[in-house]
């Protein structure tokens, strides 16, 4: 048993590196650009990452077993969907940013959550092309378990892992995928699929699912961070929105694993989510070593307690976060959280704005939101 626990330390490495057509390797603190590495032939999913996501930067684990597992899961998903600009609408673009910016985090249970209804009721944002789009304040939705149905989602290769299909639908209205919601509501979108949603095609085609960011503001600097592999492929989606006076606010939509198998829990001492978080933090620090850019990190951590190690670690990393609270956002569990670090930026958290939305709008999770000035 001791051997298992100590050997598991060999498998809990979270060291991260940028990946992509131009691998940037960190060697003893220095950074060197390497063009066109041979690894892309070894892991064909690397090429798929480019897809239609122009300029999306990728980060992933250094450890070979992680990269092999992630590549296998990636082989069944479609390309990144990046639509950086919201629909042009004079009434919305004239909304002053200094009236506040709302960030929502919500696991929508693969189509079960009624995003359109949520936007209308909670943010007073009407997704109707016939109506002028207006809202009290600009917002961003950090979505987990978003799905996309498209012909760009490939057949699942032989032997590649694929999760069972989830076909949850909202209580009222049709089941819309994340791209349809973005189009209907005129929102900017960054969607990065992390895994396949079933092997067979549905009514609208083959589906994949993952995390996304929707926003009334333009999205810039898109980044996808493949997390160290535990039970499933998880990808953190990162983008920035502009703030007052040329500042920026970085947003990260995260989704950690529940648990691997029992042996993995025993072997890692229950530190699976900590490992994934440490990997994500390292990747974010590669992007912003000074930690100067204000950042909101929010999502479904799959925690069973607000006192879990991963929550405590994140409160240390993001010291301007609201208290996590013990409110249950999924059944009797508190898996959803939001963290914030003001850095050297001009953003701050509006006091007492951090709350749980009472209505789940058809999802198995309730949303959390907070307002920033």
């Amino acid at each position, binding site marked *: 048993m001791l051997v298992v626990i100590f050997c598991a330390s060999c498998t809990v490495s979270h060291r991260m590196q940028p990946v992509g057509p131009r691998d940037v390797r960190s060697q003893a603190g220095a950074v060197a650009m390497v063009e066109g590495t041979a690894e892309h032939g070894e892991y064909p999913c690397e090429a798929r990452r480019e897809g239609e996501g122009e300029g999306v930067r990728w980060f992933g684990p250094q450890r070979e077993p992680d990269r092999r597992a992630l590549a296998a899961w990636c082989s069944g998903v479609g390309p990144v969907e990046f639509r950086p600009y919201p629909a042009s609408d004079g009434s919305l673009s004239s909304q002053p940013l200094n009236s506040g910016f709302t960030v929502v985090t919500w696991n929508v249970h693969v189509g079960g959550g009624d995003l359109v209804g949520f936007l209308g009721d909670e943010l007073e944002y009407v997704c109707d092309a016939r109506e002028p789009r207006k809202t009290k304040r600009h917002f961003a939705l950090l979505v987990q378990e978003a799905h996309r149905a498209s012909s760009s989602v490939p057949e699942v290769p032989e032997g590649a892992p694929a999760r069972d299909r989830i076909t949850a639908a909202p209580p009222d209205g049709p089941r819309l995928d994340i791209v349809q919601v973005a189009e209907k509501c005129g929102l900017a979108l960054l969607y990065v699929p992390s895994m396949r949603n079933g092997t067979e095609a549905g009514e609208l085609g083959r589906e994949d699912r993952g995390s996304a960011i929707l926003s009334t503001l333009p999205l810039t600097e898109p980044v996808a961070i493949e997390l160290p592999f535990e039970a499933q492929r998880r990808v953190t989606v990162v983008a920035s929105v502009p703030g007052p006076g040329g500042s920026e606010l970085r947003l990260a939509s995260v989704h950690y694993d529940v648990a691997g*198998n*029992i042996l993995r829990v025993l072997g890692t*001492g*229950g530190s699976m989510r900590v490992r994934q978080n440490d990997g994500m933090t390292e990747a974010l620090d590669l992007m912003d070593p000074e930690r100067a850019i204000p950042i909101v990190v929010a999502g479904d951590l799959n925690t069973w307690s607000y006192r*879990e*190690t991963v929550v405590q670690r994140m409160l240390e990393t993001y010291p301007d976060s609201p208290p996590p609270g013990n409110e249950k956002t999924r059944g009797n569990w508190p898996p959803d959280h939001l963290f914030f670090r003001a850095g050297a930026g001009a953003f701050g958290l509006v006091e007492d704005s951090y709350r749980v939305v009472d209505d789940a709008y058809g999802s198995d999770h309730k949303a959390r939101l907070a307002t920033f000035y």
Partner: protein
Amino acid sequence: MGGQLRIRLGVPLTEQEAALVRLVGRIRTTRVAIQSPAAILSFLLFLAAGPGSDGTVQAQETTGSTEATVAGAAMGLYAGAALGGLASLVPCNQTLAGISCVRTVAVLGAGIGLASGVTLGREDSDAIWDAYRRAGVGFLAGSAVVLALEPFVDRWSWADVAAGGVIGSSIGAGGSGAWIGLVLGMGVGAGLWQVIPSMEMPDAIGVGLIGMAVGGFTSWIIRAVDAGDSPASDLPVLQFDVAVPW
């Protein structure tokens, strides 16, 4: 009001072992601070209950052997690490230290198990072979439980079956103390969960696992102490100080 209850556990050594210890030059003590009120309650409850004693007086003289000593060391090391690791999973994953905390407790548990297993093996071979038999039964039982859960869980693998076996064998090796500790700990945990608003369901399970570990360790230590003679006053002992704040 407040203070610290200190409990010293000692493992007697033979003359040869004492000589080796003198050669090494140091006798190490290990301290454990139990901070959680639930853990304190469980620990005191099960120490007071004295679980794990077989409750019978051996009519015949027991004898140890080199093989039993080695086997006892191995089993004690394994079961102690497993019990310590399991007991620490819930509380340690609510600290910043996380896996470091789990490793520390697992090492401590392994130390207690090792000392107990060596002592027991030197004095009573049968007790060691009984522990192995119980561990084997526990492995099969634990594996069977996980196998039976397969139709009811989303994710299942043969690695889970192996893990169930590992857990079952460490409980089996711990003897009746581990079982009693687990059951009573679950009861205490469930009660605390209802009474303490900040306590979550996994905390209740954690109290059960702590009870299992406490009962298992107590069982090992009592068997080891029962099997050995009291140490001569001039012989050194391996000491474990358990500090329980109250």
